């Protein structure tokens, strides 16, 4: 027969610990991984939540190229020599359901674990 008082102490301890852990967990930044494909081939994956300093890199395709700018939490095509430049006009990509695409250069930037939006698909 275990006294009620003991149970109360045990439960209070568990309560405090789990409450503390919960708070810590909810203030942590979540992973946000995007993948960059050129011509169907995976070039690289980047975890946007772990980007320290902004940086750029080039993706070449045939005679053309796209310049990609990566910052913490977001990524975009900063420059491209394709005729329409839709990829540049897209603006910043945060990892949502609507991927960044450069059609002439067959470039795709999309989310790997797409939990950033609540959406299944985005029109536009």
């Amino acid at each position: 027969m275990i006294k009620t008082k003991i149970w109360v102490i045990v439960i209070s301890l568990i309560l405090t610990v789990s409450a503390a852990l919960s708070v810590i967990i909810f203030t942590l930044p979540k992973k946000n991984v995007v993948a960059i494909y050129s011509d169907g081939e995976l070039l690289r994956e980047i975890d946007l939540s772990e980007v320290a300093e902004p940086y750029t890199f080039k993706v070449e395709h045939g005679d053309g190229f796209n310049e990609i700018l990566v910052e913490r939490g977001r990524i975009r095509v900063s420059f491209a020599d394709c005729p329409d430049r839709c990829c540049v006009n897209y603006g910043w990509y945060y990892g949502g359901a609507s991927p960044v695409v450069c059609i002439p250069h067959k470039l795709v930037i999309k989310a790997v674990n797409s939990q950033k939006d609540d959406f299944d698909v985005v029109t536009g």
Partner: protein
Amino acid sequence: MKTKRIALDAVLTALALSVFIIEQQIPLPIPVPGVKLGLSNVVTLFALFAVSPLDALLILSLRIGIGNVFAGSVTGLIFSAAGGLLCYVTELILYKFLTDRQIWVCGVFGAIAHGVGQIFAAVGVSATAEIFIYLPVLILCGIVTGALTGSLAQVSVIKLKKVFPFLPFRRKKEEKQN
């Protein structure tokens, strides 16, 4: 005696099922998957402490099986089973150490176990270990909801044993009240 017991179990099962289904319509403001009030645990606890562990298991199994068929989802069944059964086992073990006035404690640990079971099921089904990160939150919610449902069960057990002595309640050896 047997007929009365079957009838009692049937009523409790129906109750557990209704509560289970209605509870799914209640939205909770917590953005973590698997957080629920666990009201059907009240019935499980009641059956455990007032009738018998075997009857409780029976009612629980029926609630999990039929309830999820009505809800129409297989993944729901897996989660429900994982959470519900771990909850039952935990409550069964504690049953040996608790008096009727400590049923709320049983509720707390049962609810914690339910959450833990569901997380393990979720990790197993989706093969992503990241889901474990929700464990502290589920434990926290489990303590709160478990205390609530456990208290409800406790009140029911104590009162009903007094009011309906002719019903086939099993009696534990009466312990000195704490």
